[in-house]
């Protein structure tokens, strides 16, 4: 009979976090340890269901003996490490990152970013109005998704979710290099001419709203999107027998968005087109 591989028991590592002795399980990142001890570190490209990408550098902290600042989202805790999260140098770096991003990209639908800009006293306006990178109209080429390139910070989370980490559809990738880099389908075609299967798993991980559900996009455009008035209820999908957990976002008795809990053992935050978008039949009420 096969013995189930349990792995080596995870040790607790001792290290110093902002002058206090703390312990974290082997394999945890500095970010995990910070969150466990209630410290709020800003993150953008970090995804709880994805491997760290180290793209945005907004979560940097200081580690004793390290020449450069280290990204908390990917650096694993080591015994005896001395980590400082709130030094002048790391605060300055976060401020610059926020200024560069907020001046070149539309972060108006990025959760929490306004608080961070205030906290780190970032002044994105100091680069002037010409800092905006793109100024493109949002792309609406189908009934389910909208792609708003003005909001894209090139964190690559959508590419990873569409690619080998979850969906394995590979509909999108990075096209161009340097300043010309952008996320695109092959030949930068409309989504409807691509390999996209409309699972929405890219939207699920997008940190800025560059990718959004058309339902949300239309309501925002009409000024009716009211997140505080929405309820979130987790239920089970009505289609096949896999049993995906759906979180229904409901506003005025209408389902306006569907997500899935990222810590769910069945979905890990992923859904298919039916689970993500197949709710409309319930509210075809007249």
């Amino acid at each position, binding site marked *: *009979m*096969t013995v*189930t*591989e349990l792995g080596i028991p995870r040790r607790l590592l001792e290290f110093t976090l902002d002058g206090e002795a703390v312990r974290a399980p082997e394999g945890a990142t500095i970010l995990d340890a910070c969150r466990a001890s209630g410290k709020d570190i800003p993150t953008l490209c970090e995804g709880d269901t994805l491997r760290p990408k180290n793209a945005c550098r907004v979560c940097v902290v200081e580690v004793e003996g390290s020449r450069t600042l280290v990204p908390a989202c990917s650096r694993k805790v080591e015994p005896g490490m001395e980590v400082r999260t709130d030094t002048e140098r790391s605060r300055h770096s976060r401020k610059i990152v926020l200024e560069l991003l907020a001046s070149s990209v539309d972060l108006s639908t990025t959760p929490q970013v306004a608080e961070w800009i205030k906290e780190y006293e970032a002044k994105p306006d100091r680069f002037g109005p010409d800092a905006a990178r793109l100024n493109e109209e949002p792309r609406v080429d*189908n*009934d*389910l998704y909208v792609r708003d390139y003005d909001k894209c910070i090139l964190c690559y989370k959508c590419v990873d979710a569409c690619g*080998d980490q*979850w*969906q*394995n559809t590979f509909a999108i990738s990075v096209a161009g290099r340097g300043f010309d880099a952008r996320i695109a389908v092959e030949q930068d075609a409309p*989504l*409807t001419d691509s390999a*996209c*299967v*409309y*699972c929405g798993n890219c939207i699920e991980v997008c940190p800025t709203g560059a990718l959004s559900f058309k339902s949300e996009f239309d309501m925002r455009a009409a000024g009716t999107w009211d997140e505080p008035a929405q*309820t979130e*209820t*987790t*239920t*089970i*999908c*009505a*289609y*096949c*027998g*896999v*049993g*995906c*957990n759906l979180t*229904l976002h*409901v506003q005025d*008795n*209408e*389902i306006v968005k569907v997500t899935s*809990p990222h*810590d*769910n*053992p*069945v*979905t*890990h935050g*992923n*859904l*298919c*087109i*039916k*689970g993500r*978008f*197949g*709710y*409309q*039949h*319930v*509210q*075809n*009420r*007249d």
Partner: protein
Amino acid sequence: MKKRQPKTYTRLTHPLVRDTRDEPFRRASWEEALDRVARGLQRNRDAFGMFACARATNEMNYVAQKFARVVMGTNNVDSCNRTCHAPSVAGLSAAFGSGGGTSSYEEIEHTDVIVMWGSNARFAHPIFFQHVLKGIRNGARMYAVDPRRTSTAEWAESWLGLNVGTDIPLAHAVAREIIHAGLANQAFIERATTGYEEYKKLVEPWTLSLAEKVTGVPARAIKELAHAYARAERAQLCWTLGITEHHNGTDNVRALINLSLLTGQVGRYGAGLQPLRGQNNVQGGGDMGAIPNRLPGFQDILDPDTRLKFESAWDTVIQPHYGLNLTEMFEAMEEGSVRAVYCIGENPAQSEADSDQAVRRMRQLDFLVVQDIFLTKTAELADVILPATAGWAETDGTTTSSERRVQRVRKAVTPPGEAREDIDIMCDIAARLGHDWKYADAEAVWNELRSLSPDHYGMTYDRLEEHQGIQWPCPSTEELEPTYLHSRLWEKDPQRRGMPAPFGIVRHDPPVDLTDEEYPIRLTTGRRLDSYNTGVQSGGFASPLRRGEYVELSPEDAERYGVVVGEEVQVSSRRGAVVAPVWVEPALRPGLAFMTMHFPDEVDTNSLTIEANCPIAGTAEFKASAIRIEKLPVATIVR
């Protein structure tokens, strides 16, 4: 090309009634509608059938089967499980005494070999397939057995494109190769199984070369699968309707189970059998007893002690014999021994094989009440239509997934108009028929079920919330069982090992609807990614992938018939004919065509399919019809 959007259904918001079938429906009060239902059922007490709903909650299914058994005094209760995975339940319970899949999704990420047999999970079960992909990325080798080179097969080590309906020859040839290569797990066979000698004789004639002739799969591919499966430390065997929707579906399932018994690939972490269920609660509906041969908790009606337990709990007498299944109920309508049907959330007028026959039979009923969220084609045949809630978003309760995981369903939106919850409606009808049931809420129903089903006893609503669902069996409120079933088969102590698993002695039996000169093409059916069943639900959203119904032909056949993509052709079987546009699909082999049942209002595919039923499970042979393709005369192409 013309883009077809399916018919969009709008919600039912108030009860509808009529005095005769010739007149249109008129709006009625709940009071009047329920009185009519009570009268219609009362006068047919001895000839009643209940169609429960594999889409609704466990709680609703529990009350529905209780309604049939206590209020109407019959075991005639069933659901659309009959049209899909009933053979899996029958086959698994014959071998192991329990009708559930033996493994969990997470285990497939940690296995060595994955066999996807008659399953296009990439389309039909996309999130399950993400677990398969994790397994493949962790180093597992996947084999796809399917007549079509599906998008699942694209991820396979090897694709075994067998002829439709030759699953048993292929399985037997795999078994013979395993035995002759000395790879059978003798220790497991001796300890945990019975009937091996007979099985060995049964598969002996199925040499690789004979199997190649019958199945169309090259001998060396069969050999490779046999060796990979038998040599793997852990292997998972998954199947879907490609196995079950045949006139001998249960035999097919047994043939696959045999392979796991031969190699000991069951009852361990990462080694098991996984039928992928097609409706959100088709597992739960059966678990709740909404099937004609089992009481809630999958307990056998023929067992007197079990009956006694339910009889004292429900203060009733339970018929000591099995009821009619869905297929038999339809036959009984023809004979007049089922004259009243209470159909909840099912659409048999479009989902049954040979749909014209199904409609004709339902027209013969004395009384038909349909409880649904839409005015379906089945509802159009009814005497009374009751507007219900959408189980998954408008009620509280639980459903049970393919991996036996019971999970909480929660109410997120308020139902439209006067629509009411299924359980409340059934209780009101029960009251009119002399049974005063009081359930404060879904949890009260669930707790009654827990008190009667040992496998569910440990699953309180609080625990289901805490663990994000719990897999059955869960007899204890303190502990959780392993994620896989039947580890008992590996026990050294015969006492603890329990009943050994018998090999199924099943023989090849080709599809009933034979191809010949007149009907030369084999039609098989299945699902597409963005659509679902009869399309009543999935038609409600605008999918960029949807292109309506097509008859998919291989490039070779398209050339032979001189037809091009989008051209409408007549598709005829021995039962009916439809007109459908052509799609040329390189994943099909010559002689094989593919259609779905997603757009029955435009192309009624099930008027082509054959109602040749599995004698054990009652599932029809949706997967194998013989058809003919004809070009339309030029004049009729212009529509």
